[in-house]
């Protein structure tokens, strides 16, 4: 696995990025003229209503979709080369664990595919279970875990092979608010410990403002960036910071950005 942690330059660079889907009803401009640079170690949230292109952008970075215009580089390479060099881990909205494998077995899945030795697999699984606070649950099966725990296992799986980019597509969307709060806190601690670059797609304004160093506000038809907000909040954030004045101001600015992109209109 290539060690990309000392590659200079931005982690993700998009210039004039456009993605148009050709559907039966005509072309859908999922992304249009997107310019964005993500530096190493940032926590960038993408927020916007359905159809604004945030998931499409994340998938383009992951080389799961291919842009039709503009340029996109990840770690200085094409997204496909970045995928081949296993530069990122992806977390979906559903945990998507295999029911026929234990939690440890599920975390081992990418390690088996990428050819790590058995001893390596063992130690990585243990490390990463510790990281997400699921120690002792390695031998359990997914149905024995709650939704929140399954999602933590999914995050552990994405961290197992030391990719320095973590792409998360509404990972906590299916969970209740209390589990969400807890996982938000844990994610921030994880980020502080590992120093990864995180791209996080969400529907929730408080979540975006709480977690990120930068918030990218997007709007639909065509999918574009309406605002990029650099968060002045300190890196150490207790949950209570959500009642502070700065927090509310940033949330307000996000909402303004959404309104400007006509996100609140039909």
């Amino acid at each position, binding site marked *: 696995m290539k060690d990309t942690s000392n590659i200079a330059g931005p982690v993700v660079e998009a210039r004039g990025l456009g993605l148009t889907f050709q559907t039966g009803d005509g072309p859908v401009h999922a992304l249009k003229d997107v310019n964005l640079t993500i530096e190493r170690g940032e926590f960038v949230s993408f927020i916007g209503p359905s159809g604004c292109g945030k998931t499409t952008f994340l998938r383009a970075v*992951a080389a*799961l979709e291919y842009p039709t215009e503009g340029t996109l580089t990840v770690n200085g390479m094409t997204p496909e080369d970045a*995928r*081949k060099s*296993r530069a*990122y*881990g*992806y977390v*979906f909205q*559903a945990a*998507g664990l*295999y*029911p*026929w494998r234990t939690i440890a077995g599920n975390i081992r*899945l*990418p390690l*088996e*595919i*990428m050819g790590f030795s058995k001893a390596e697999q063992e130690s990585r699984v243990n490390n990463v279970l510790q990281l997400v606070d699921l120690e002792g649950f390695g031998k359990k*099966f*997914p*149905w024995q875990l709650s939704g929140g725990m399954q999602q933590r296992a999914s995050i552990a799986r994405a961290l197992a092979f030391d990719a320095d980019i973590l792409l998360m597509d509404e990972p906590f969307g299916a969970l209740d608010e209390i589990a969400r709060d807890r996982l938000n806190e844990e994610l921030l601690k994880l980020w502080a410990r590992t120093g990864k670059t995180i791209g996080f797609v969400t529907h929730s304004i408080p979540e975006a403002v709480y977690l990120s160093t930068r918030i990218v506000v997007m709007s639909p038809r065509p999918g574009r960036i309406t605002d990029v907000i650099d968060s002045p909040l300190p890196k150490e954030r207790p949950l209570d910071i959500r009642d502070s004045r700065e927090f509310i101001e940033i949330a307000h600015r996000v909402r303004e950005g959404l309104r400007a992109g006509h996100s609140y209109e039909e």
Partner: protein
Amino acid sequence: MKALLPILTVLSVIVALWYAAAVWMNAQWERDQAARAGTEVTFAQLLPLTMSQDRPVLPAPHQVAVGLWDGLAGQAITSKRSLVYHAWVTLSATLLGFAIGTTAGILLAVGIVHNRAMDLSVMPWAIASQTIPILAIAPMIIVVLNSVGVSGLLPKAVISAYLSFFPVVVGMVKGLRSPDAMQLDLLQTYHASRAATFWKLRLPTSMPYLFTSLKVGIAAALVGAIVGELPTGAVAGLGARLLSGSYYGQTVQIWAALFVAAFAAAALVAVIGAVQQVTLRRMGMAR
């Protein structure tokens, strides 16, 4: 246990209807016999007579039961009149044919899912192969194979395989294609090869579909083995018993062989069902 009472009720009704039908269908012969002897036969006399004929049109349940008992327990297992022997002959062809058919079915399914050319070309042929009446093909297969020196177990197994590969192909193609887009995307993010995707994702998710197909397939294989025994002027096997019973008018023999075939099919499907339960429970996919 709660299901026991309804099951017994339904069974009793069926047996009662069977007795009534036996009386009704065998009565004509009794009346003809009586007319020949110049006498009349009353209903009260009809009742016992119709249920104990040598060659009834419809054997009564107890006659079939006696025939079954005689065939299963009353003969030496190796004798030509033992239903156990005949059942084993049919079952051995069934199991061999089932193994061949299942293997062929799985290999075809893997090919169809991974190769576009096979995807477009194999299915129509597979479907067409099943629309030809098996009773027409079976003699051809047996004659052709006999002429190249292959006789006995293998031709029957080929017919069984012929009937059982199709459900396996259909079920496995569906099963191998069952993983959703998210799961396939996940493996793409690991840059997994097609082989890795197959072994780690497609094959395990296709297990429920496989077992369903196996249940259909094994019943079809049994039918194939029995049909395969009919053309050769049958010597051994349940199909042979059915055939010789119909040549010599031994209806009790026919029904006894029929019941053994039915029990065998039920037992085979039950065994697969048990394996299915155990396997799927261990894989966390039990419904």
